[in-house]
């Protein structure tokens, strides 16, 4: 243990004194405050805060990921290439101790920097309203919609299997099925169409969502209906008029509140609703009416409606979001050490960067395979897809995805990320790194 610690502290000294870390530190120290001033978002206080947190955390995340990759690879390959490892490995140090020491050093360094920059971002975020002397309405808005951690009620996908079957058999009977197309594709297409129908409201028509077992911490507080409109035809001012009724539809109109609104299309909007509209048994209905003022069908995208309610504080949510970044860094450190255990510096960096980028866009990559032709997709689903699934999904556990919409990042999700990224994937990588490093010849000369 003492030798692991000796190697770890030496690794930190190396990263600091060789000024690898300095580049990143200076960059962030300069950029973060500048961003705090220059990021204005959509001009509102909330927009300003959202852009700052989003860009600040993303930048910190990106730079620290790069730093972790480069330092872990540098510290090992440099020792091997410059042969300082000759004098280290011939001391009573097991090779796994050397590798674990390097890992510990890199993780400690990254953690320290992560804490430093997170605190900077946090402080700037907290003090922004004071600096800009925001007015009362803005402060209330950001308090409810930004400085909070909200859980979301998402309406379940409507089951359309039966309707699809009916439609299919109808088509079959009338002989309208397109020739040379597989049944599964037609079914998929019909399903998509039916589900779209369920989320669309033509002019004058309502859409209703019902939730059961809704439990809010503070019944006298507020909930937020978060929604986004798509339209079939763009309205002239890109705005949609609407009437929303929220409450217990079984006692209509006694326990109902009505809101008349006008909202821009294709952006997420939030509507504050008192939480006491939820019935005592936890029932809540939301009804949207496409008022005749509009001249277009309004469609809610698949994630186009949620009900948000306060379930935690901004601070704890922020800490958990930062922990997500930490898990990433631990994974990347293990990955980089694995690469460095058998590759030279440039190759190992390239390798690790490829994996980092793929992991960052893993959701996009996986989705893109769904659009491939059937032959190709068969090939990919048995080759590339499993590999991508093996990688951690950085975008699924993206901290800004939670902080910007003030969405609760639950402990269980954090635990899932920790389990997958650190306990399974990082450990596995580390195991292979140890294995390779244990058996390789340190002083190998290739002739």
């Amino acid at each position: 243990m003492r030798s692991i610690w000796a190697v770890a502290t030496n690794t930190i000294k190396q990263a600091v004194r060789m000024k690898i870390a300095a580049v990143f530190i200076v960059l962030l120290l300069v950029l973060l405050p500048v961003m705090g001033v220059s990021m204005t978002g959509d001009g509102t206080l909330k927009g300003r805060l959202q852009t700052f947190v989003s860009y600040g955390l993303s930048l910190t995340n990106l730079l620290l990921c790069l730093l972790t990759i480069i330092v872990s690879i540098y510290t090992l390959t440099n020792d091997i290439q410059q042969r300082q490892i000759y004098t280290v490995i011939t001391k009573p140090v097991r090779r796994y101790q050397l590798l674990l020491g390097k890992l510990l050093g890199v993780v400690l360094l990254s953690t320290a920097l992560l804490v430093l920059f997170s605190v900077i971002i946090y402080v700037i975020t907290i003090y922004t309203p004071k600096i800009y002397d925001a007015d009362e309405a803005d402060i209330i808005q950001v308090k409810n919609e930004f400085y909070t951690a909200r859980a979301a009620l998402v309406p379940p996908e409507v089951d359309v299997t039966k309707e699809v079957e009916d439609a299919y058999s109808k088509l079959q009977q009338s002989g309208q099925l397109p020739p040379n197309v597989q049944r599964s594709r037609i079914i998929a297409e019909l399903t998509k169409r039916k589900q779209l129908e369920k989320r669309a409201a033509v002019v004058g028509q309502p859409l209703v969502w019902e939730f059961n077992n809704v439990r809010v911490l503070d019944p006298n507080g507020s909930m937020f209906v978060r929604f986004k409109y798509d339209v079939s035809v763009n309205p002239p001012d890109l705005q949609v008029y609407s009437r929303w009724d929220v409450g217990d539809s079984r006692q209509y109109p006694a326990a109902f509140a009505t809101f008349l609104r006008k909202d821009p299309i294709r952006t997420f909007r939030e509507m504050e609703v008192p939480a006491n509209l939820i019935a005592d048994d936890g029932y809540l209905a939301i009804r949207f009416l496409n008022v005749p003022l509009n001249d277009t069908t309004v469609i809610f995208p698949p994630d186009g409606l949620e009900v948000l309610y306060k379930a935690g504080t901004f601070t704890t949510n922020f800490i958990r979001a930062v922990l997500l970044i930490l898990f990433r860094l631990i994974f990347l450190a293990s990955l980089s050490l694995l690469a460095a255990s058998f590759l030279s510096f440039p190759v190992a960096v390239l390798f690790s960067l490829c994996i980092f980028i793929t992991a960052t866009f893993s959701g996009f990559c996986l989705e893109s395979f769904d659009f491939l032709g059937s032959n190709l997709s068969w090939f990919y689903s048995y080759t590339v897809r499993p590999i991508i699934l093996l990688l951690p999904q950085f975008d699924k556990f993206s901290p800004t995805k939670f902080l910007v919409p003030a969405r609760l990042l639950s402990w269980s999700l954090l635990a899932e990320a920790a389990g997958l990224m650190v306990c399974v994937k990082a450990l596995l990588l580390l195991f292979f790194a140890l294995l390779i490093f244990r058996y390789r010849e340190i002083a190998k000369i290739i002739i």
Partner: protein
Amino acid sequence: MEYAVETFSLTKIFSDWWGREKVYAVDDLNLQVRYNEVFGLLGPNGSGKTTTLKLLLGLLYPTKGKVAVLGGDGADPKISARIGFLPEESYLYRYLNARETLDFYGRLFGLPPKVRKMRIEALLDMVGLKAVANRPVGTFSKGMARRIGLAQALINDPELLILDEPTTGLDPIGTRQIKDLILELAKRGKTILLSSHLLADVEDVCDRISILYGGKIQAEGRVRDLLLQSNKLQITTDAISDNAVERIKQLIKDEHADCQVFCPMDKLETFFIKTVADAQQQAQPTSGAVSRMGISDFLAAEPAKANILDKLVSAPVSRPTPSQALTTEKVLPIETAESEPDDELLRKLSKPDKPARLKPVARDRKVKTQPVETKPKPEQQVRKSILDQLTDRSTPQNDDDEQTDKSQKQK
């Protein structure tokens, strides 16, 4: 455990990328290094010396055969805790300073902080780098880096010292100091395995040598046995009259033997050290202490009587008799000099519990016992510039001069 280092049909083949065997770096090598001897691995460049050492230390894995170091595997922490290794070049972390470097290695051995601190100071003093201990080793010259490398190899007070070309990059004074240190460590019961192609160095310090070529042992044995011309005799006298010389010549002629009469030459090494010492005495006080910084000063002034006796009784190997001039100059004063502080200093190195205070005293004392430099002791505060001077001299050219001269003399 008869041998400190033993190899059994050790073979190392370097293959190319396709696995085709390319080079027999070490070929069926059977090496035996006894405890408490100084063993030299000789050979031209590329003869497999360094590869052999790397195989011993587990930096490379043998293709065939096996090695036993101190009765075990050299990569086993229990064994490697008793080994000191100086690689062919001092590969150091450039961003650490000298003290941190030694501290790092001390921590790898799990030495407790007190012991570590004491040993570091003792070693820094011994290799003469105390004044620059806070400078990053990246800024060190080759000679200084070599000294730190040596200190690093000694921090665990090893039983077995493996030195890969210990004197490369050092100036003649540094070389002399390293050689004296090796002899001194051998007296203290250490086993030393060194590789070199500088024949003079090996001749001066080694009990036994192996000459490698193409990864195979070409010759092996005691230096004395290999070099002794038992059919010849050399008589060295003070200057005597021509008349006496004629009479001796006549005597020899009566024995039906040939004889040559000439004045013996100093070794260039001796001359060089003397010259530098003289120059230092005449120079301004800041540079007056250069040669006194040395390892030899520190270790050689130790009262070695008991050790030598022990050695004569216990060790089967006789201490080699290197060049005559050197022995008379260096060893004689060692035995006559009685300075306790040094003894304690050394014990402190191996037994951590003793206080570290004694060093400065030892330094002053030693100075007086050193015959080569008979000048007054230097001021303590001038050490830094001394070192700069010392290290400035460690250019390869000096080294080469010495080398060529020596090899000529051998002929």
